[in-house]
């Protein structure tokens, strides 16, 4: 029974956070297929952790941290293995199920490309702030950094984006 409840709670976590995590991964890696895999892996690893009886104090922060670690591994693999050279850098960049259609596809392509050109950790900070909608304090908690550090990264990230648009 306890296991069933755990399972139920976990699926609720998935329902609540899957879109946010997917969006985050998508903007970090600029590839839909890779983002889907990273999202799946994030929740798989989260389940592996909780099913062993480990407690999580802040679920959202934990899931973001797992996703972030997987993204870092993804970057490392991309750099070191020529085997992955065939992966498309920019995948299917517009959500085909976008009901609101708030952004024209060309504009979306352009902002995605610009974000892609941002260096880390500015890219991470900008994505978490404006795409994920997290406050600097929340970002700091997730990344275990100081809020001031996060604020500076956000500001520099936005400045870099401005510069990229001006070029």
């Amino acid at each position, binding site marked *: 029974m306890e296991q069933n409840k755990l399972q139920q709670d976990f699926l609720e976590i998935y329902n609540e956070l899957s879109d946010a995590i997917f969006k985050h991964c998508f903007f970090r890696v600029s590839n839909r297929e890779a983002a889907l895999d990273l999202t799946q892996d994030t929740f798989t690893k989260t389940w592996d952790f909780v099913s062993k009886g480990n407690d999580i104090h802040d679920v959202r922060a934990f899931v973001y941290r797992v996703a972030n670690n997987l993204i870092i591994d993804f970057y490392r693999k991309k750099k070191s293995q020529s085997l992955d050279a065939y992966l498309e850098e920019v995948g299917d960049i517009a959500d085909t199920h976008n009901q609101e259609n708030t952004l024209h596809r060309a504009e979306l392509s352009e902002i995605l490309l610009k974000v892609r050109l941002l260096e880390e950790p500015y890219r991470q900070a900008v994505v978490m702030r*404006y795409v994920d909608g997290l406050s600097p304090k929340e970002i700091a908690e997730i990344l275990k950094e100081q809020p001031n550090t996060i604020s500076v990264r956000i500001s520099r990230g936005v400045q870099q984006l401005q510069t990229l648009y001006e070029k």
Partner: protein
Amino acid sequence: MKNNIPNNIEDLLQQAGSSVRLSDTEKNTQRTLLMTHIEQKKKQKWYTAILHAQTTRFVVAPLTICLLVVTGVSASSLDAYPGDILYGIKTNIVEPVVALVQFSDEAEVLYEKKLTERRLDEVLVLAARNTLNDVDKESLVSEAERHLTILSKSTETLSPEFAVEILSDTEATLRAYEKLFSRVDEKETTDILSSHVAILNKKRLTNEMQISGSYVKKEDAEKKSQDIKEFLALVQGGVDLEGQMQGALEAQAQLRLAEEALHSGEENISAGSYTQAMLSFSRASRFIREAQVVFNTGVYLAIRPQTVERATTDSIRVNDEAPVAIAIAPIKKESSELVNEATMLSKQVTASFAQETSMVSVEVIDSEDVYEIFKTLIKSNIGNYEITPVSVMKTFPGVRPEDFNNVNTEHGVYIMTEIGLLLQANGSLENDNTEEISEAGERQLLLNIALRLKVEFVTRTDVEYIVGIMKIKESSIETSLE
């Protein structure tokens, strides 16, 4: 490229974020995969418990084992091979218990057939991994023979019609394995299989003689015809009919024979010879089954062990749209690394199959430096011009802008976007397709085109074929590849 500087980048990012989300289908798929993962983890706990119980000499309650079987056998155990930790569980617990729950003679015979295939699969996998030793080989082959002997004997208690079906199917399967074992140079095992094929063949013919005089209804023959057509379509759908890999060629040949046998059966029906029709359909079924086993269980990575030291590669990939087809490039690696990689990929391919006995064998093919050949062919066509997207697409009408996605130049990389092919260099994006591509870029270009065309390039002939396709205008290419 004109850069419209947005008034408020923050708003733009927020809007971009709200434009991206998982589709309902993607969510459902992910939930399903998560549930499967959760269930798998639960089952692994059962196996761990039993293994622990065995080692500490607890008696495992029969009810526990039955529950294990009823809830389904874990793929992780079935995936185990001699030397793996779960192999003992697979052969000493799972298989005997599953055997106990075969409640009819027919079910028992089918299960013996399954176990035969499993033992043969295990030999093939170990041979492909280069970890097959004489002791394991003898043990596995002798087990396979034991199951075959039981199967063969058990058919004597079955109805001739069912006996023909099971013997026919087993004969076809063994013929396929004969081909596979000869490909990994396992002559001794090939000979053993040949002798069993002969025995099964004789028994099948005997049973066919028995039923040849029996009455067959027209509707039964017509239904059999329909079943065979569906089986043929199913296997044809899975076999790469355009592929040139060895497994594909053999499977194609078998399927052609199957079509002839099917046609012959239909002619028999028209002539009122329904019993003959059934025998023709049985023959067709054997050819289809052989094609299926040869292709699904056969060579995907095309790596022959004896040439592995000279093999070269840059990329290996599973083509997800046609799971049995893999596009490969020539390989440059240490042999052990290559075999490990091949083994890893073979597991990925195996996991994507519904059949639990599916696996892959591994062969290394001698390869030429196909990238040099590609470059030479390109240069010989474009003349004195540099190799750029503009010059290539002008010379080769079959090349698309997206073929240059991820293709490096000396100072940057081409990226395919919604607004066209752009050059990313020095931190900016330019609408410039005239920068010469680098050597790495040439390799990527060949890889991109090969993946798009779903062809592999291992030899000069393969590259010449690809360059030939590149010369053909777009609409003609799509027609010829259908």
